[in-house]
């Protein structure tokens, strides 16, 4: 910290405490990690399987969130309708709901006997629970609010007059959104996507409740970590570190690639 340019202590002290608060538990994991047996543990196919499933499902869930969440954020930020405030608070429900309850709620709607799931089963023979699709759905359900809130904020911060300018040039509402609005809020969408992906990657409660836990099919890293914790805490630490290292590597690479 250079003299004159440094943060005042009223900010610097809580900032340092805040950072320590976030980093110390990680240090705890690193200290307790069984470094000597690490390579052989990592070579276990079950670990790689869970990691692959985690990455694939979190990425698919993020894609689902982008496809559904960006339009939802647009509607909330750019249109006026009765009950908009209610809708806005409904969007945050998955953030407040304990994830396990979210998983039960998903079962009640999309399960084999659920409100919608019943008809899916009867009409198409599709049952969602215990499939990788269910993992994606559970993760998307929990992660969607993060994307919607971030993108809505970006939309509110963006100057709507650019959209007006595009309209006077003859662009339809869809063209305006695609060629002007979306590029303008791209950093916000990216940030929302990263949050969404991170949340999906760490998702546990809704996933295990709605999708169950079966290696190769629905067992993501957090589920594997939780079960390893029952009998083998060291294995749980290894799995957590793998998940952490991979996600940090991916996010750093993304940041270098996309954010100048």
């Amino acid at each position, binding site marked *: 910290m250079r003299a004159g340019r440094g943060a005042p202590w009223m900010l610097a002290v809580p900032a340092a405490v805040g950072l320590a608060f976030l980093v110390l538990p990680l240090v705890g994991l690193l200290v307790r990690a069984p470094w000597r047996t690490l390579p052989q543990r990592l070579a276990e196919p079950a670990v790689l399987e869970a990691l692959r499933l985690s990455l694939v499902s979190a990425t698919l869930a993020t894609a689902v969130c982008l496809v559904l969440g960006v339009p939802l954020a647009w509607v909330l930020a750019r249109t006026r309708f009765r009950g908009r405030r209610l809708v806005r608070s409904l969007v945050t429900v998955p953030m407040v709901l304990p994830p396990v309850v979210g998983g039960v709620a998903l079962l009640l709607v999309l399960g*084999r006997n659920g409100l919608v799931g019943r008809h899916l089963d009867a009409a198409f023979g599709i049952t969602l629970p215990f499939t990788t699709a269910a993992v994606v759905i559970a993760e998307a359900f929990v992660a969607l609010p993060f994307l919607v809130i971030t993108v809505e904020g970006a939309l509110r911060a963006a100057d709507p007059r650019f959209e007006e300018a595009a309209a006077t040039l003859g662009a339809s509402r869809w063209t305006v959104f695609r060629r002007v609005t979306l590029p303008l809020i791209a950093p916000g969408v990216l940030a929302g996507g990263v949050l969404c992906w991170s949340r999906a990657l760490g998702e546990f409660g809704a996933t*295990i409740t709605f999708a*169950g*836990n079966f290696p190769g099919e629905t067992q993501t890293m957090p*589920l594997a970590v939780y*079960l390893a914790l029952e009998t083998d805490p060291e294995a749980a630490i290894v799995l957590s570190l793998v998940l952490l290292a991979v996600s940090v590597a991916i996010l750093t690479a993304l940041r270098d690639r996309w954010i100048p």
Partner: protein
Amino acid sequence: MFKRALTLALPALLALTTAACGGSSGDGAAKETTLTVFAAASLTETFTELGKSFEAANDGVTVKFNFGSSATLAQQITQGAPADVFAAASPATMQTVADAALAEAPTTFVSNKLEIAVPAGNPAKVDDFADLANKGVKVALCAEQVPCGAAAKKAIEAAGLKITPVTLEQDVKATLTKVTLGEVDAALVYRTDVIAAGDKVEGIEFPEAEKAINDYPVAVLKNAPAKDLAQLFVTLVLSQQAKDLFTKAGFTTTP
């Protein structure tokens, strides 16, 4: 000097905090008025009942429960959680506490037996254990890492069956939920869980369950802040009154 002061101050501090948390009528910092019991989740209903009669019999005593997965509880105890009594759903988890020299003479007080649980009405027409190996019958099991999963594995091996479950749940309650919601056609859970679920599920007994009896040990903990009360509570758990309660809940009691 400092160390001595600390050893004197710590119990007082603990008593203070537990008194504050329990909200009991603390008539002196040193008096044991709170008993802390760590018990397996499957004991929730029976132990809560026992706790009430224990409080009624011992004036001014409050019993605090921490129900959870046996493995998690064992871990909390080995990490220094201030518990008086530990009741586990498997000897293995009790062993981890005993290995850390924290549990005194564990005693088995009940055992629990697996049953096949099917949703009310038994939509997949499951009659016996072998039916669980049928294609088209969706089965939920507990994960091997938790006691009910270990027991299920043992029973399946004893029967020589090849069962492919759709899910390996993190605990027995989660497994049962999949049955009550009708998401699976059958699950292996404890008899006590089938009884607790009422008429939402039906239980089917099967002979191989005898090969996978799950014993529940209870022990007073070495560092118990309220050791005398803990001993009293364990005596209650082993009493005839408790046995009736456990039997009603579906446990098998040892004679």
